[in-house]
């Protein structure tokens, strides 16, 4: 059993965090809503730390580095499709999972052509069409899909698409909890810091349990993506489901604890809440994820490695 991430991956994450923080952190995301050069700055930072040298399909070690980069990028709401570029199918063709009935891709303008796949493996070429024009998805666009004749997205690609998305959301959630802790420690009402109130402390505790559990499930399912030889997406879907449950709730409560400030864009929590929405809703909302998970469990089970050595 090895649950702790290797030191090399943690180091890589720390370097990425330092570089992105020095480039402005969440300010980059804030700026990108009106200035496309912010996305370019984010890309330069990511290229500078070696993002394009990672081969996440090649081995678990690289996949862990890629996942950690997604997590760190989520923590700054980096205005660049990190997971999609890590899974690019050619030098300039990012890879995204879509709902073919309503295809939308976040940060779609990053490339003129995308490789898109549904969770059932249908493969498409996608071209950006029109912005969705929403404050909660400032970089998302509808896309036009063209089927790739005879093409099927591999199980590994679909697993990694789901997993990197979950690691990305984990980063959003961890940062939101950190902001909630910082804010409730210093914000005083009724003569006390908010964190003196038990209902706030206990909510923070529950949020931390959710995020720690999600963190571990992310690690487990990444390991499973490389060790489970079946075509099952159950482990990857379970992480997406848990990320949707935990991160949505964490963002909501962190925003609540900020009071009215939580809706003001000068506070990071407001930007994080908005920019996390595409990841929370694309390619499946929680209900659709859950239904897909049940189908996958019906077909392939959900034992993991924990029942070796005997019948249940």
């Amino acid at each position, binding site marked *: *059993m*090895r*649950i*702790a*991430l*290797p030191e090399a*991956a*943690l180091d890589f*994450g720390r370097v990425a965090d330092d570089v992105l923080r020095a480039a402005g952190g969440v300010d980059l995301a804030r700026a990108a809503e009106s200035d496309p050069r912010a996305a370019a700055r984010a890309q330069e930072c990511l290229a500078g730390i070696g993002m394009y040298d990672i081969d996440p399909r090649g081995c*678990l*070690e690289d996949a*862990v580095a890629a996942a950690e980069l997604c997590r760190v990028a989520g923590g700054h709401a980096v205005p660049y499709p990190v997971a999609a570029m890590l899974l690019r199918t050619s030098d300039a063709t990012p890879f995204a999972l879509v709902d073919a009935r309503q295809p939308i891709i976040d940060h779609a303008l990053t490339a003129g052509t995308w490789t898109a796949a549904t969770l059932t493996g249908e493969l498409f070429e996608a071209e950006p069409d029109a912005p969705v024009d929403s404050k909660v998805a400032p970089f998302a666009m509808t896309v036009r899909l063209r089927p790739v004749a005879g093409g099927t997205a591999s199980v590994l690609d679909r697993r990694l698409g789901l997993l990197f998305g979950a690691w990305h959301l984990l980063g959003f959630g961890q940062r939101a909890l*950190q902001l909630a*802790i910082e804010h409730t*420690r210093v914000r005083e009402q009724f003569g006390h810091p908010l*964190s003196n109130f038990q209902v706030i*402390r*206990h909510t*923070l*505790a*529950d949020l*931390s*349990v959710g995020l*720690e*559990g*999600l963190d*571990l*499930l992310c*690690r*487990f399912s*990444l*390991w*499973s993506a490389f060790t489970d030889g079946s075509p099952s997406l159950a482990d990857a879907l*379970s992480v997406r*489901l*848990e990320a949707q449950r935990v991160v949505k709730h964490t963002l909501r409560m962190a925003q609540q604890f900020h009071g009215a400030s939580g809706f003001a864009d000068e506070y990071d929590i407001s930007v994080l809440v908005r920019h996390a929405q595409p990841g929370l809703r694309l390619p499946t909302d929680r*209900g659709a994820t*859950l*239904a897909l*998970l*049940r189908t996958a*469990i019906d077909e392939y089970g*959900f034992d*993991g*490695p*924990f*029942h*070796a*050595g*005997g*019948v*249940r």
Partner: protein
Amino acid sequence: MTAVLDFTMGESAAALRGRLRRMVAEFFPDDFLGAFTDDPADLALTQRFSRLLADEGLLTVAWPREFGGSDGSVWEQTVVREEMWAYHEPRGPQYMGLNWVGPAIMAYGTAEQKAEHLPRIATGETIWCQGFSEPGSGSDLASLQTRAVRTGDHWEITGQKIWTSYAGMADWCVLAARTGDKDSGRRGISLFLIPMDRPGITVRPLRAMLGPHHLNECFFDSVVATDAEVLGEVGTGWSVMKTALAHERVGIARYARCERLLWLLRDVLRHEWDDLDEGVRNEWSGALVQVRVARLLAYRAVERQEGNEMVDLEASQARIASTTCDQQVAEVVSQLLGPRSLLGAAAGAPAHGAFEDHWRYAQAATVASGTIEIQREIVSRELLGRQAVR
């Protein structure tokens, strides 16, 4: 070369899991629901099974060899915890002696205490109970008022304990009493190892939804104890209790029974499964995810323990996940069973009443061995005191 990540427990742990499952399947009837039923034969069965485990060297897998154990890896210990809880704790009341009373005596006991108690715990001969909670001291355990007064060359203990599991069947009790003055708080508590047949001890069972034998009141009326029966130094009982409760937090592998019952339910309902409400079937899948999360949080606490790191935060997080998961699973199972969830074993309940039994026990999960509110206090203190270090 060390793996980047690895979620397998190793061959010996996997083999142990298979062996334990075979032993349980061969020894217990399908309708076994633990030792604490109205049928005394169930308790006797667990006592015999404990001796069988002892004969096979499996009762004290976790213990060091010098005390009759097998020096098992933390993952072998984890497998034992999981398999025993999954199958309604077939060691019955031995759980407490094995899981923390024995280890506490190893750590804090005198040579005489070790010689007297450890062999008999290791062979499953004695049943222990834990006299901690009092009517006025639940979560605020350090306020306990049971007094141990120095009288000549011995102690006289007077007071009341409550919610004492197994007290009616126990041979021995680890009894927490105040040896300092009434305001001495944590510093004034000592632990005594007292035989339950000593004059002055009265046990009264409490009727409870958990079933017979679980909850009891114990009255101590000038019960005599000797210096040789003090565990650790006088006045150091709190630190021993804290260690004990830390064991408790990762000790009960609730997720293991949850997972078994979810799949057992699926099997019980196999002919009607596809016709059941799709939303509830979806929630059944979601419950499996929560079970896995609880399992992984427990494993992380175990891994930290293995590295001799402080595990207060991790143990409490694991316990919050495990106990809330227990209640979530109980609810999902009830919804899938519908009115049948109300049937008791004698009325032909599905799986001989295993689901009804689980629902009742799950209600107590967020209270027993430290309430969820106390766990949240521990977690939030750590969070607010320091930013989590990745």
